């Protein structure tokens, strides 16, 4: 059986000339090692829990704000990769944001690269991941709706409004709206 393991890609704001690429893995055996590489900064990528992601567009919106903030030197966190995680959450607390959306003991992970022209380190990093790559189309089987709803405070939401729509709208207004 041939499965489609193409990454999710999205061109970010044209002024940044950056492209987002996201890969999904399950049954990852070296999570602790990956975590250490992210924390000490040797891996230039963001690694996210897929359980809190309803759609890749959610990651694209967060990544887009991260690269724009890097360009205008208005980042809240230290690197563009942590900025991406920070932008996914609604809290202004940095360590809470990173621990919520970053990986801990999860064995499913989303690996996000921000590629601007010549520097593409994705293949070097990906070969270090000891897990099974999954098609992006299977993302929803990793999503935990209950966690998504509590993270984005959507529990008493009137039905009709689309979930993704309200999640990204809350994400991009968190600096000036108390959600």
């Amino acid at each position, binding site marked *: 059986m041939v499965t489609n393991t193409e990454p999710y890609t*999205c*061109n*970010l*704001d*044209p002024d940044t*000339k950056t492209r987002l690429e996201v890969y999904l893995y399950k049954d990852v055996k070296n999570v602790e090692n990956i975590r250490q590489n992210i924390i000490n900064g040797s891996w230039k990528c963001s690694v996210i829990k897929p359980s809190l992601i309803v759609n890749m*567009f959610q990651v*694209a*919106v967060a990544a*887009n*704000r991260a690269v*724009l903030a890097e360009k*205008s030197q208005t980042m809240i966190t230290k690197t563009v990769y942590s900025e991406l995680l920070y932008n996914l959450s609604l809290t202004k607390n940095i360590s809470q944001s990173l621990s919520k959306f970053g990986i801990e003991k999860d064995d499913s992970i989303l690996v996000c690269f921000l590629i601007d022209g010549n520097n593409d380190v994705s293949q070097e990093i990906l070969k270090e991941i000891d897990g099974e790559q999954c098609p992006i189309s299977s993302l929803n089987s990793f999503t935990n709706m209950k966690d998504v709803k509590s993270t984005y405070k959507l529990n008493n*939401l*009137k*039905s*009709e*409004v*689309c979930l*993704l*729509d*309200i999640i*990204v*709208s*809350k994400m*991009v*207004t968190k600096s*000036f*709206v108390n*959600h």
Partner: protein
Amino acid sequence: MSAELKILKQGAEAKLYICNYLGKPTLIKERFKKNYRHPDLDTSITKERIKNEARSIVRCKTAGVKTPALYLVDFERRRIYMEHFEHSITVKDFIINLKSTTNQGDMNTLDVYADLIGGTVRKMHENNIIHGDLTTSNMLLIEKDPSNIAENTKWLNHSNIELVIIDFGLSFIDTSVEDKGVDLYVLERALISTHNDYPNLFSRIFEAYKSYSKKNIKEIISKYEDVRARGRKRTMVG
């Protein structure tokens, strides 16, 4: 990969562009610099207005009122990037197009939309969102599930239609009954001037507004009547 910005409209406060952004049809609302203002003041006024507009849009979503999704709020470029509804019609154009087909079924559809508008405006007011510019140009109809029905009949298929409220540029959050009364009055005036061939439209909308919820309704009605008697602005005489 440079974005092609297509100008859609230019108003007194902002330019609207459409483009594809992050893979989605996007509307950019850019508030331009006003040279008659001191630059610092201009920056802070613009920033406040952008925040205000974005805040109301998100608040509507939480209240269950459909508004464009926000993709980016960019103070530096003075822009809001939001969902663009490519396949939509303004309520204004919908009503104008009705004239050519005056059968009873179409009139019933208009009643359905009037009720929807009344309920939606009430939902906003219950959440203290004052739109500030309620006109039929700032209301869009979109399909819940995209169909292949011909353009001239698909907007009549009301069971598949959703109402979207747009342009929160003049909106604000306020609990006062006065502001709700003025908001309703603005809508009434807009309907009279744009759709004078449907004189009962506002009363139908207002009935739906009243019946959506009983909370505070007496105060709102009486305030609306006060506003109506004197006009939108409070008299400052004496």
